[in-house]
């Protein structure tokens, strides 16, 4: 069985970058539904371009007809024409920016939503294989680049494109020979933009990736601050940072040097083209093939034409970084869950779920060839309490994780109420099975909202009931804001033990049919734990429970004990059965008793 890799860094290294066209099409998907508005903005864009051409036309009339012939009244009407067209152009361009802006913001909203929603569908492995700094960068930083691509890149590109076509037609009509010359200039520009753009995109991609590493390195330094201080390893951390910092500087400087070429390069080609047009034009005027008026207005048009092209330099930079960022977003969105759901899921009424759990010759691994669980079989009858014991690293956490399909088995079956968990409706199963996880996590929110996490409609009375039962009500009641107290990030204004108590309360409030406690009380003092154990006897009534703990009391109370050692269930049965068997478990149990 080949395990899927969820590492984003791997996809980058393997150069699985999508093609430019695919990236464009991907972004286009977000605009498709605004077809009408998009069309409107294109019409407005066209009108703006026409108005710009109109202005240049008036300019030609002004010089060739009015000024050259000294026609004063003609001058006045031309100037009025310029004024009117100017107002029209401002109105259409206002309309266009307005409409495009609205669409753009909506599209970005959808994009961010899609990424975030997609993250919710990804399996746990994705989050263990990737650095959180990099994931966050893709949702925020990279979307920001797409934003710039849309607002200051793509639309402007369209505008330039329209203008170029319009002006191109006009200059072509004015003078074919000069236009051929201009065309050569355009070819140079396109080649330049293509070559430079390719390098720019690649260097931008590298700089974005190095930026991700820099953030991750800073996050690690701040997160491990005490460990660093305590081992006086500021030097080592500084050394590592200097390396990442230098790598980022190098990537960023390379990107900047390539980006710096855009504007001067385009200017150079533009000016040389204009200059050659001027030289040839002058010769033609001197030769009498062309009037001066036509040259001047041609020159004005072509100036306008190339000015549009020059504005491509910042557009090009925005487009290249936008496309580089799009590739990073697509990589994330291409990750697929490996927890597949059945097309016709088993969906029992919640009250009818009994909570019978069965493992049938289950094999499981995180990476190829390293089995974390081998040939595991057990049966938990509804409402029974199962103790999962054994040395750390033996596979206990993975074992309980398979029940609610946090991971799927490689081989064998996990059944709840005699139905393969993969046949179950995934949400129903996760409602039915609730965990108190080893790593306690609380949100930077009020205690109430944290408790409601598993059951959004839990009443204050229900909360108070559970908290009283667990013996934590008094400590919460003593807080100035009581249940409305806002917790700091990860609840750091509480002790670890207090955090664990809240997470236990949260789990029981969600009213699960099957409850899993994974070392839920490790950092709680034993007197509080006593209270919690008693409370749990009440709370566990009618629920099947799996308890991982190192304390003997848990084991003695259990209906069934599963002893997991080195990926296998070595022994299982009731406490009496295991003790009378005189195997590994009873040996361990005796040693524990002597020790404790």
């Amino acid at each position, binding site marked *: 069985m080949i395990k899927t890799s969820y590492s984003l860094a791997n996809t980058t290294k393997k150069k699985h970058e999508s093609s430019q066209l695919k990236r464009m099409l991907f972004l286009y998907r977000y605009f498709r539904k605004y077809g009408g508005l998009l069309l409107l903005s294109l019409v407005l864009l066209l009108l703006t371009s026409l108005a710009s051409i109109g202005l240049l036309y008036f300019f030609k009339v002004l010089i060739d007809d009015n000024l050259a012939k000294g026609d004063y009244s003609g001058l006045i009407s031309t100037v009025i024409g310029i004024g009117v067209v100017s107002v029209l152009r401002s109105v259409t361009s206002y309309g266009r920016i307005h409409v495009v802006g609205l669409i753009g913001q909506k599209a970005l909203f959808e994009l961010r939503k899609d990424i975030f929603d997609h993250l919710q569908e990804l399996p746990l492995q994705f989050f263990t294989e990737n650095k959180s700094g990099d994931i966050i960068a893709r949702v925020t930083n990279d979307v920001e680049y797409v934003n710039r691509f849309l607002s200051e890149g793509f639309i402007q590109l369209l505008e330039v494109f329209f203008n170029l076509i319009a002006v191109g037609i006009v200059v072509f009509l004015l003078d074919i020979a000069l236009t051929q010359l201009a065309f050569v200039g355009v070819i140079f520009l396109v080649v330049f933009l293509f070559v430079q753009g390719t390098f720019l995109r690649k260097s931008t991609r590298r700089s974005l990736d190095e930026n991700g590493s820099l953030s991750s390195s800073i996050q690690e330094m701040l997160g491990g601050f005490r460990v*660093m201080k305590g081992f006086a390893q500021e030097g080592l951390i500084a050394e590592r940072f200097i390396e990442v910092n230098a790598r980022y500087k190098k990537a960023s400087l390379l990107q900047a040097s390539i980006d710096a070429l855009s504007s001067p390069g385009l200017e150079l080609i533009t000016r040389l083209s204009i*200059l050659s047009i001027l030289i040839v034009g002058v010769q033609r005027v001197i030769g009498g093939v062309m009037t001066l008026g036509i040259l001047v207005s041609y020159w004005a048009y072509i100036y306008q034409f190339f000015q549009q092209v020059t504005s491509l330099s910042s557009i090009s930079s925005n487009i290249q970084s936008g496309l580089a960022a799009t590739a990073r977003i697509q990589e994330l969105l291409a990750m697929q869950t490996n927890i597949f759901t059945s097309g016709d899921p088993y969906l029992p009424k919640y009250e009818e779920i009994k909570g019978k759990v069965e493992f049938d010759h289950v094999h499981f691994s995180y990476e190829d060839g*390293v089995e974390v669980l081998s040939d595991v079989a057990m049966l938990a009858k509804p409402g029974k309490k199962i103790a999962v014991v054994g040395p750390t690293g033996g596979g206990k956490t993975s074992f309980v994780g398979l029940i609610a399909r946090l991971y799927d088995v490689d081989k064998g079956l996990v059944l709840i109420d005699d139905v393969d968990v993969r046949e179950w409706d995934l949400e129903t199963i996760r409602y039915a099975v609730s965990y108190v996880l080893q790593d306690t996590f609380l949100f930077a929110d009020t205690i109430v909202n944290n408790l409601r996490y598993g059951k959004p409609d839990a009443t204050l009375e229900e909360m108070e009931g559970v908290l009283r039962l667990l013996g934590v009500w008094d400590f919460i009641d003593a807080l100035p804001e009581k249940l409305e107290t806002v917790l700091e990030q990860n609840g750091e204004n509480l002790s670890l033990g207090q955090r664990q108590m809240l997470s236990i309360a949260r789990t029981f409030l969600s009213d699960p049919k099957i409850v899993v406690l994974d070392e839920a009380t490790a950092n709680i003092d034993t007197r509080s734990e006593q209270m919690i154990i008693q409370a749990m006897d009440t709370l566990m009534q009618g629920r099947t429970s799996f308890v991982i703990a190192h304390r003997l009391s848990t084991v003695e109370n259990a209906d069934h004990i599963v002893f997991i050692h080195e990926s296998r269930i070595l022994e299982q049965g009731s406490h009496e059965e295991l003790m009378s068997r005189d195997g590994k478990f009873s040996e361990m149990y005796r040693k524990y008793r002597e020790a404790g």
Partner: protein
Amino acid sequence: MNLLKKSLFPYLLQYILAAVFLIFTVLITVALPKLSGDVIDQVNTGKFAQGTIVLIGILVASAFLFDYAQAVLSAWVAEQVAYNLRLQVVDKVLGQTYQYVLQTTPAKLLTVLTNDIVNIRRAIAQNLLQVVSSVFLLLGSVVIMLSINAKLAGILFLLIPLLVLVFVGIFKKLIVLFQKTQLALDKVNRTIDENIKAASLVRVFVAKTMEIAKFFKNNEELRDIGTQIVLNFAILFPLVLLIVNGGMVLIFWFGGTDVIQGNLTIGELSAFYFLLLLFLFPIIRLGFISGEIGRAVTSAKRVDEVLKSEVTFVDGVEPLTSFTSLELRDVVYKDVLKKVNFTVSKGETVAIIGPTGSGKSLLLHVLLRFLDPDSGTVLLNGKPIHEFSIHDLRAKMSFVLQENILFGGSILENIAFGNPQATKDDVIHVAKIAEAHDFISGFTKRYDEVIGERGVTLSGGQKQRLTLARALLIKPEVLILDDATARLDILTEQRIISNIKRELPNLTLINVAQKVASIRDATRIYVMEDGEMIASGTHEELLVSNFSYQQITLSQQQHHD
């Protein structure tokens, strides 16, 4: 602003050179329309001279060289400054206390090191020089316009106050919106960050819809502010364009009249047309740049705040050759530690037990000098602890925290964290003491196995054993354990403790634990409750004398009988 000056200073020469190159570029840019106008007039009057065209060609080529040179130079300077600022800030933070990091919050420090420094870099690479070029462009075009026709130039100057008015009006609104964006972004970041950290929780509680709704709200806020910003820009650009076109109308009106009356040539008027664009462009750009520079100045202030933060930590000079005793006298920290007294002498094993939230971890933070007490004294070998060199102190005292903090990198690097020069044999030796060697040997790459950012591929008990091995590697004289064996079974724990006692017979051990079994043999046990030491003594003494301790012990024995 001071910070900007100071950090720019070492590269001033290069930066000035960049500015000079830029000025050349600008001058050429200004001169080109005039020269082209000359060519047309020469043709018109039949006095066409090739020299002008050659001159234009030379200028065009040198403009390219100057422009590219200045862009690369200023980018180089900006990167150097950003690189140095990041180093300075990291250096400062590394020298700061844990207290400082807690108060400033890691989130803010991260933003300072990334966002804020990027803002400064952008200002140096582009905006500051753009001010120079805009001013020169403005001045240059003014001079040329005045030289061509003072009346027309005067008309154009009338447009300036109008443009300023428009910019000030709209930017006032935009700045408020920019600030709002920053706050909305903070919220978005926090939601995503929490969502990633709570990935398993979200799945276990089927909280997908709740998380999606939470993010939806943040996202909507961002969209609404973004829309407002876009709409303001939608007004700004066409309005500025309209003013510029208004200027054009005036030029053609008055200029055209002058041409007809013979006071102005057609070439001059068309040069004026291009100068109009050239002249208004820098004004418009200055408007935008001022926003960017404002942002950079705010960022520079935030960076400076970190760099100028006072280091309350004072290192001592007294060398610490060997440990004899550690004592707390009436130590108070906020309202968590209330006049705590505590002593430990060389070779003793001292334990602290007490309910959740009683202040045990904080007490250890004070012992380790992570936090300095508000009042009271910490005595090391009978002298105030701050008189000793922190370097010596760290070399003698080691610790395992309650949270299992590991770094990215291999297992080997993590265990050797306290002494990167340690040999692999040293690492294996301590891993064996910490009962970690066996499970490490089970990994495909053994000691070279890389652990994730948050060390998630390891179980809680495995992480605890790695942090124990790391603590032992520096061969400490004092070892402080904060609930460091909570995730280990009692047998593993006792094996580890006896391994430690065997390998480091003179070790002084300070052990915070929940299990009486783990601490029963301690020389002295402190019972801590609600920030106070309510009793101390041996296990046997406390069993007789202290009610709380009796309760704790009883709670752990109940189920045995």
